[in-house]
């Protein structure tokens, strides 16, 4: 390769020097619109805004339910709605999504029943929805492991001959895990149609980004695999959606994987069980409040005349209905059969599991209050 084309290859793999942004924090368009990306249609932005408002309401409701003990734990994505919603809107229903524990809002946006979404965090069972039907993998807790699964799925989609794409959601902290590295490398070598979407919310539980990496930005990891990469203002829905849409198209067209890093912020603690005051200043949180993605998009849409007070009020009502549905679902007691524990270890239980099932059945029968009592 000539030095010139080498230089071009390198430039083509590096992200833009500063995060791609369409709309400034105050809701006004940035002076210089990003040349490489197309602003989505206003209808799509309106739909995105709706989903963001609903998503946030779902999220605050879920957090509230932890206080009432109806959820075992909830990792909030408040502040990350632009990422949560754009990820889903950038995909087709027949694409696959590989989410983490923090991505419940994305799942609701994907159309999964909120009660099924919360099955895991409520403690009823592990994954509550049907991954095959929804084309959404179970929310993944072992960090970065799902990035490989997404790559494998993408490779399956490629081999199936269609134009399906897989998207892996992953946190800033999780990019430090070996599996992240292996996934990017496999995807690049196989040219698998997968988008790696890093929601860099600046913390991994208590560990700030500066302790996680010394890279100029996480998006700079792409070039080390030959993976096209980009960084984007993660609180600017317009930008995130534009960049992800382009990334998905790139993958869909058979040009291989893309790495996208969104700079965003986790407004709440890691989960309801976490105490964020131990490791970060209120000032910092306040500052990010100014960058709120929902308000920003609302202001922008209003400035474009696409949104009225009535729209906002109507959606607020819809959001309250969603919240009420979630509450009702979570307040209903779940009926669980302990003997189901033996049903899904293998397609058919082993002789040993049948023995153990019988043992548990006997234990349960013994401990159950007898009819006469």
């Amino acid at each position: 390769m000539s030095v010139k084309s080498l230089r071009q290859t390198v430039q083509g793999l590096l992200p833009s020097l500063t995060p791609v942004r369409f709309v400034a924090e105050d809701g006004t368009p940035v002076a210089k619109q990003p040349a490489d990306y197309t602003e989505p249609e206003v209808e799509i932005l309106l739909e995105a805004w709706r989903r963001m408002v609903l998503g946030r309401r779902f999220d605050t409701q879920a957090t509230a339910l932890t206080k009432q003990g109806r959820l075992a734990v909830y990792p909030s994505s408040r502040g990350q709605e632009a990422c949560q919603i754009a990820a889903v809107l950038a995909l087709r229903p027949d694409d696959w999504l590989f989410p983490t524990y923090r991505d419940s809002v994305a799942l609701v946006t994907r159309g999964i029943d909120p009660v099924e979404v919360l099955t895991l965090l409520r403690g009823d069972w592990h994954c509550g929805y049907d991954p095959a039907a929804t084309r959404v993998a179970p929310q993944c807790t072992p960090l970065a492991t799902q990035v490989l699964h997404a790559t494998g799925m993408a490779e399956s989609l490629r081999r199936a001959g269609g134009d399906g794409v897989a998207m892996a959601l992953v946190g800033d902290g999780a990019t430090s895990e070996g599996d992240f590295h292996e996934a990017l490398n496999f995807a690049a070598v196989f040219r698998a149609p997968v988008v790696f979407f890093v929601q860099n919310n600046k913390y991994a539980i208590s560990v700030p980004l500066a302790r996680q990496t010394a890279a100029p930005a996480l998006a700079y990891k792409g070039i080390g695999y030959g993976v096209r990469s980009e960084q984007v203002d993660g609180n600017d829905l317009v930008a995130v959606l534009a960049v992800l849409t382009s990334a998905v198209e790139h993958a869909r067209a058979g040009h291989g994987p893309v790495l996208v890093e969104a700079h965003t912020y986790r407004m709440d603690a890691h989960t309801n069980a976490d105490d964020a005051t131990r490791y970060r200043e209120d000032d910092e949180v306040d500052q990010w409040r100014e960058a709120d993605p929902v308000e920003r998009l609302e202001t922008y849409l209003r400035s474009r005349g696409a949104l009225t007070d009535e729209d906002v009020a109507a959606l607020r009502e819809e959001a309250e209905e969603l919240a009420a549905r979630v509450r009702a679902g979570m307040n209903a007691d779940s009926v669980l059969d302990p003997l189901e524990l033996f049903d899904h270890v293998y397609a058919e239980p082993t002789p040993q599991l049948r023995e153990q099932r019988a043992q548990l059945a006997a234990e349960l029968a013994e401990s159950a209050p007898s009819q006469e009592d």
Partner: protein
Amino acid sequence: MAKVTMAQALNSALRDALREDERVLVFGEDVGPLGGVFRITDGLTRDFGEQRCFDTPLAEAGIVGLAVGMAMGGFRPVVEMQFDAFAYPAFEQIASHVAKLRNRTRGRIGLPMVIRIPYAGGIGGVEHHCDSSEAYYAHTPGLKVVTPATAEDAYWLLRDAVADPDPVVFLEPKKLYWSREDTDLETRGALPFGRAAIRRAGRDATVVAYGPSVPVALAAAEAAAEDGIELEVVDLRTLVPFDDETVTESVRRTGRCVVVQEAQGFAGVGAEIAARVQERCFHSLAAPVLRVSGFDIPYPPPKLEHAHLPGVDRILDAVDRLQFSDEPDTRHLLKGAVA
């Protein structure tokens, strides 16, 4: 004497180790300013500085691999894996290096390091947060494997582990972190590292337990005593090295043995204990050594963990079966098995 929790005892042990030996370092995910998700390292960064207790990037193989290099470089790293299942990414480093470096170097380089792992269940944790992973480590020669059941043991076993010239996997039963006990951490109990404790004396049968199962075994003994059956409860404290002497002596005396573990049973540490006990006490045994354990299933969701975890009743059921021949039970089970 003061009421202390196991979490406090562990924190004190780390503090005292940091204070007494400047080679000791504490690191891992969120162990710094946050003090760890279970607060075991609470205040250590504040009191000893970032140089002694610090956060690392989020990568468990990295943490353990770094610790290997630092132990080679003269430090005594005490690292935390945040939860049991999140130690698995470090498995290669643990099995191929931590466990083997002394041997690989023909004794020239030992690795004095401790891998602390909150383990086992009973806290309503969602998937991947409640694995009982002790067998993986106990089966790996070159590791010592410890699991305390009391605050006092937590303190002293951790002190011993940090001082040990060899790598120690230190398994902390999560559900006991907050149990309080009257103890005085200043004076060391009688038992050295490597010895089991007889937590309750009894003549009718020996219950061998460790870590999270010890209080359950003691509760079962309490209940059995009401029925006139006196169970002796042995708390192993260290799985490797294993205290054959205490266990063998007890079972030879009682003639019966039940082994309790929270982990899935198949090829667990309980299997080892049962196998050893019958090897060594065969002619003293009036009944087979029975095992009480979790089922051979992935750890259940929070609302079903009660059905999985061995509780008092499951132990008492086993004790009941110690009195009889194995024939009826086994036939029954086998019928189920081939149905």
